[in-house]
């Protein structure tokens, strides 16, 4: 992979987003066991799918920024 000259604060922003997405994904997944309304559950599952994608993308982006 091409070595990118990432600025430190860019890496930090991406990290922050990664943390946020991870937490969202986890809560959305767990809370599905509690909801009654099926439409709400569908929406929660959609969020989980989207977040999974985002987390993967962010991980990939962050792997480029590793200083080695």
């Amino acid at each position, binding site marked *: 992979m091409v070595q990118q*000259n*990432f*600025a*430190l604060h*860019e890496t930090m922003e991406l990290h922050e987003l990664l943390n946020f997405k991870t937490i969202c994904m986890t809560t959305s997944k767990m809370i599905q066991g509690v909801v009654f309304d099926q439409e709400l559950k569908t929406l929660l599952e959609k969020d989980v799918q989207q977040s999974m994608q985002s987390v993967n993308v962010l991980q990939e982006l962050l792997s480029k920024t590793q200083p080695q």
Partner: protein
Amino acid sequence: MGFFQDMIGMGDMTEQVIATDFLIASKSGVINYAIAISETVTPEVRDVLRRHLDVAIETHEKVAAYMMKNGSYQVTNPQEQIRVDMQASDTVLDIPRP
């Protein structure tokens, strides 16, 4: 217009100040629009704000690119950025007090 006259006396600094101001304004624009969208419930309002947000993001991108090209915004070189900042700050401190 005394303020602008003072600024013109600063030569190159004028453009840098205007560009920086523009950058900050465009940044606030993006964030303001995002906050407004996160409070929106009416689809029609959302559509308009979303279109504006896209434009705001592009404007910010262009200004940032312009400033990086001109060397007054060094993303990858913190030392250089601090040097430019310090230069600008010194100019500000040199402004005679009223």
